């Protein structure tokens, strides 16, 4: 079984991204035998009112049973925008959102800002994991209209310490390894799950040895990144890097546990 914890649908305003609909995502999932995908609407980055993006995705998912059965909604929430608490409640209780996705660089707040801390604590109180894509695209190739900020893993250490009982999904990690021993310890000892889509996951075998097999899960970052690389990082692991039990955790076990599926 495979679960992708980092998928998206919707338009990216700066270039054409084929495969950005629920239908196309499902086709890709079938092609690579991915059973479930955690999905957010990319429009939630760009709409001022992110709830409109959540509504769009919810309507798409509920329109067909095959979407409902295999797409897991993560809601885009902007804690600087009016009504976010109501939006979160609707997404959680009405739309069946399992977690939330935050985009601090796009929505213009910092990880230590009170609004961010309040949202992470609120999600924690409702048992919802909080996903942070560390970047959406490579800033070197970005549009001149796009943000330049890329986060690195180190920058999340204070937030994890500040809300130690929250669950964090850190996605598309471009930089941050290697970490200091005390920083690695924070990742090991808290509820943190990294996906396999990021550039910095250049040697997954090495990193599961350092941080633990339970700290990683399949992620594609589709449609902005290719669909295969995140999967390849797991499937190409050698037997001395990951036995079959470890592979199953990376493919789906860690995601199931973390998301409560």
């Amino acid at each position, binding site marked *: 079984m495979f679960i992708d914890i980092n998928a998206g649908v919707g338009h990216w305003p700066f*270039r*054409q*991204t*084929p*495969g*950005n*609909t629920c*239908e*196309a995502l499902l*086709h*890709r999932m*079938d*092609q*690579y*035998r991915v059973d479930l995908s955690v999905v957010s609407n990319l429009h939630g980055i760009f709409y001022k009112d992110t709830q409109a993006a959540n509504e769009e995705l919810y309507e798409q998912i509920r329109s067909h049973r095959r979407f409902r059965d295999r797409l897991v909604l993560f809601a885009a929430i902007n804690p600087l925008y009016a009504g976010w608490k109501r939006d979160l409640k609707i997404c959680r209780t009405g739309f069946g959102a399992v977690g939330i996705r935050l985009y601090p660089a796009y929505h213009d707040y910092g990880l230590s800002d009170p609004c961010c801390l309040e949202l992470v604590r609120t999600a924690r109180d409702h048992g919802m994991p909080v996903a942070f894509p560390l970047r959406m*695209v*490579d*800033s*070197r*190739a*970005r*549009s*001149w*209209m796009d943000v*330049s900020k890329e986060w690195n893993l180190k920058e999340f250490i204070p937030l994890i310490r500040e809300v130690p009982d929250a669950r964090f999904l850190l996605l598309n990690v471009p930089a941050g390894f290697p970490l200091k021993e005390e920083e690695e310890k924070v990742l090991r000892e808290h509820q943190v799950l990294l996906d396999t889509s990021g*550039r910095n996951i*250049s040697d997954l075998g090495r990193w599961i040895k350092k941080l633990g097999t339970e700290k990683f899960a399949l992620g594609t970052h*589709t*449609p*902005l*990144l*290719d*669909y*295969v*690389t*995140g*999967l*390849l*990082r797991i*499937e*190409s692991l*050698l037997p001395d890097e990951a036995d079959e039990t470890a592979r199953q955790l990376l493919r789906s076990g860690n995601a199931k546990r973390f998301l409560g599926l």
Partner: protein
Amino acid sequence: MQEAASSAAGLAAYRNTAENAVYAGPAHNSGNLMDEVRKYRKIDAHEHVGLSGTLEDQLKMADKLGIETLVISRPIVVQTEAETTPEKFRQGNDLVGKSIRQHPDRYLGLFYVNPIYGKESLEEIRRCVDQGMVGLKVYNQVKINNPLFYPIIERLIDLRMVILVHSHCGIGVGGKRTKYGNIQPNVSIPEDFVEIAIRYPEAMFLYAHLGGGGDWEYACKAMADYPNIYADTSGSNNEGGLVDYAVRYLGADRLVFGTDGSYYQGVGTLLASRLTEAEKKKIFFENFNRILRKSGNHVH
């Protein structure tokens, strides 16, 4: 003029697929992605030695992903162009030669020179060819369209060997409407490739790392009409659709597989493309081998 990629039929097919967004690639009936990986012979057209890790580490990673041949070079990374002295590029080439001798069944070598030192560069090319190296790699000391390069390019034409050129294409990253902001002053940009490709239509220029962080859409469009410009797929930025887009503009015969150390991305982005199996075979192996065949250095 390049024809296939810009044909109306090709464009219509691309648009149809992009808009319907349904990938026509094969289902993995075996359920094993690695079977798909191993299905394709691979020549990694853009690799290095001496920058990080050991040869054994590199070959272990190559083995994981079924990369049988790695085309290696040792670029000299310095502050000013004149610092890349003949002594330094000879040392780098010696490292490449030593690596090839250690693993002759896995490595092919590209020599490295600095055209500021014209006489020494031509002598070095002769020395490296005598050692069995198969082409030229250049970095950012001198733009590829600088007249200093002319005698070197002419030598490579005589040798029927490829010229792999480090590239940059940062559009707007230096600020709104800044076409090439914040870059190394002598790095080659797509327009430089076009200029030199027109001057030397019989030479083979290989635009390095489409996935290396540059604007690959811009680069592909800029170079679309020049059949002696090839591009490699290497780099860490495995953006979805990169390979399909490159084939749309350059055609499936002008794209070659590469990693530049980003092994997973190199293999993953090509496997994930919507290309046919025959097109993937070309890009993973056949296209670069065709280039090598011109000088009799092809892989059997």
